[in-house]
Structures are given as structure tokens and as C-alpha cells.
């Protein structure tokens, strides 16, 4: 298990940063936005690792990390005159459960149904948590904007 804030976390941050830059270039994003989506992706993965180290709870770390990067996208996307959903789509990618999906499939094929159901459960729980976090930030922002508009 790695300690937070040492060079391993920094390297993981760098990998997530570069991966998300690749992803956003692949979906035709241009200019300075590419850099900021990459930064968001790195932030997402690094904060997940750091929170995971302190709380030892995977779902809580996913939840908090997604909330953090959603707030980041709401703020930065508005500054860069970009639709917020564009940012959110890019920055949550590191936490989308592709890994547990693959392990579930592999366990299912080799006939280990206990393992498979554990990984399927993980996949569903992580996607549900991501959904919940996005929903909370989206509705909260909506509420804040409406209130500010009114007063």
C-alpha cells in the first residue's frame, strides 16, 4: 500500500493526466481545455487514492473523489466557456469500473461464480456511486444558480 503524497501517487496522477489528455483529444476537444480535462482526470484518480488510504473504504473514496472533480468541472468549465457536461464526461473516466467489469467477466468464464458475483456487485456499486455523486453536484449547482438568479 502506498503512502499518500509520495512519488508513487504523483506518478499515478501523471498517468491519469496523460490518459485523460488522450481521451479528450480523441473526442476532438481543442486548446487549453485539453489540459484542464487532463488535470481533472489526474485530480480524480489521485484524490481517490489519497482518500482510500485514509478511509479504507472504496465506495466512500469514489463518492468523495467524484464530488470533488464534479465541483472542479462546474467551476472550471464555466470559466472556459465550455458546457459542464463535456468536462464531467472526461474527468470521471479513470473511476469508471472497467477493471472490475473485466475481472467479473473473466471469473464468470472460468466458472468461479462467487468471484464473478463479487466483481459484478463491485461494478454496479461503483457505477451507482458515481451516478449519485454526479446527481448531487448537478442538482446542488442548479439550486445555487437559481437562488443567485432570484436574489
Amino acid at each position, binding site marked *: 500500500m502506498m503512502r499518500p503524497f509520495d512519488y508513487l501517487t504523483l506518478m499515478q496522477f501523471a498517468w491519469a493526466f496523460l490518459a485523460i489528455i488522450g481521451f479528450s483529444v480523441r473526442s476532438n*476537444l481543442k486548446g487549453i481545455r485539453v489540459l484542464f480535462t487532463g488535470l481533472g482526470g489526474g485530480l480524480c484518480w489521485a484524490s481517490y487514492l489519497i482518500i482510500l488510504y485514509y478511509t479504507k473504504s472504496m465506495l466512500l473514496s469514489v463518492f468523495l473523489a467524484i464530488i470533488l472533480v464534479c465541483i472542479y468541472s462546474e467551476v472550471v468549465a464555466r470559466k472556459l466557456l465550455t458546457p459542464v457536461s463535456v468536462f464531467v464526461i*472526461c474527468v*470521471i473516466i479513470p473511476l469508471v469500473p472497467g477493471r472490475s467489469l473485466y475481472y467479473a467477466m473473466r471469473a464468470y468464464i472460468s466458472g468461479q461464480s462467487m468471484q464473478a458475483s463479487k466483481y459484478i456487485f463491485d461494478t454496479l456499486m461503483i457505477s451507482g456511486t458515481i451516478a449519485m455523486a454526479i446527481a448531487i453536484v448537478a442538482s446542488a449547482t442548479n439550486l445555487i444558480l437559481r437562488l443567485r438568479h432570484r436574489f
Partner: protein
Amino acid sequence: MNKISLQECSKLALETGRIILQSGGTTNRVELMMHKVCQGFGFEDSESFVTPTGIFLSLGDGDEQISTRIKRIEQRRIDLGKITQVSKLVNALQADIHNSRPLGETRSRDFYQELVRIDRENPYPTWVINLSGGATSGFFCLLFGGSWIEFAIAFMIGCLISLSLKYISKLPVNNFLLNALASALIVLLAKTIDTWIPNIRLDNIIIGGIMILVPGLALTNAIRDTMSGDLVSGTARGVEALIITIGIVAGSGAMLKVWDLLGY
């Protein structure tokens, strides 16, 4: 300057909506942008209903004249750059209104030309897109604990997958089959390379490839649509995410099983 006709305005609005929806924008944004375009050209009375597969737009001029158009959206591909550019264009229109109203025919012609330009434009050449697909795959492989040689293999597979996705999506296949074929190809390539190069862990390479295909866009849009009250689009996009996931699992699983049965 004279106002443009009802028909022309609804055509412009529909074209705006089509580009955003085809590139993967949220329902809420499509409706908002179409409303802004109608407002910009002087038609306040517009109602729209947008689902992921079609746009319904009804535009009235305040009297008895009403123009209604329906647009079916056949194929969608993720293009976040187009969403950004069209949004910027429409917001520029909005800024123009505050300075001088009303907007006339010359402005509408400019607007249409800009839309066509954005629709045709490809900001990056194909090799950059393929390389960035490779970068995504390779760096996710490293992220999940791969070594440098695995990074190189994942990078190569990512490039090949990006290239082949371009050609597979030209065939008349649906979303499920597209993802199933792509993920089967990932496993096939990884297994083939495995027979030549010893001592590599395939798991990280295959996961790196799968991360290109995961339905992050469908998931995000499903939640944001549901939260903004567009229940039809929200459910439809949720089902889309599920179908893509099942496609990925079915494709890679089938290929792994076939490879096992062949006995390598």
C-alpha cells in the same frame, strides 16, 4: 433589416440541435440552444421535445402561423469539440441581440455557414486521433500497474483499436455489435501478442483497451438528463450505457472463451 421567415428560423434551430445531439450533448442543452437561436432571430414562441434519437421542434410567430419539424437522429459519435463550438456560436448570437436587434437575413446566412463549417471540420488528422487512442489505452495500463513493455503493447493495441473503430462504425452495425466487435478485437490482439512475447500479464493490457470503450458519456448524460427532468432521455441513455457494457463483456468474453477452446 427584415426578419427571416418562420421556416428558415426553424431550419436553423433544428440544424443547431442536430449537431449538438449527434455529438453527444445533453437533452437540456439541445433544448436551450434551440430556444436561444429562435429567440435570437425574433421568434419567442418555441417549444421543443428532444430525445436521444429525435428532435421535435414547433415554432410559432405569435399569430396563427406555426412551423413544426421533426428530425430523426440516426448515428451518433462522441465529439465534445463540436458541442463546445456550437454553444459558443449560439452564445455569440445572444450577445449580438443585446447590442442591436433584430437580426436579419445576412446574420442568418453567416450563422448557417458557420454551422456547416463546424459540422464538416475535423480539428485533428486521423493519425493524431489514433495515437491519442493509443495513449489512453497505454496510460490506463500503467495506471492499473502495468510495466513498460505492457505499456508499449497496450499503446499499440489502442492505436489499432482506434483505427479499426473508424472502419467498423462505417458498417451498418448497431452500438451493441460495434462494442462487441471492438472488445473481441482487443482480446484477440492481446492474446496473439502473448504467444510471441513471454512474461507479460494480459489483464492490464486488456483493461487498458477496454477503458477506451467504457460508456462514460452515456452514464454522465443519463444522470444529468434525469436530474434536469428529461425522464425519457435519461432512461434511454441509461439503457444505452447498459447495452454498451453488455456488448463489451460479450465480445471480450466470447473471444477469451474461443481462445481457450482452441487450446493455446
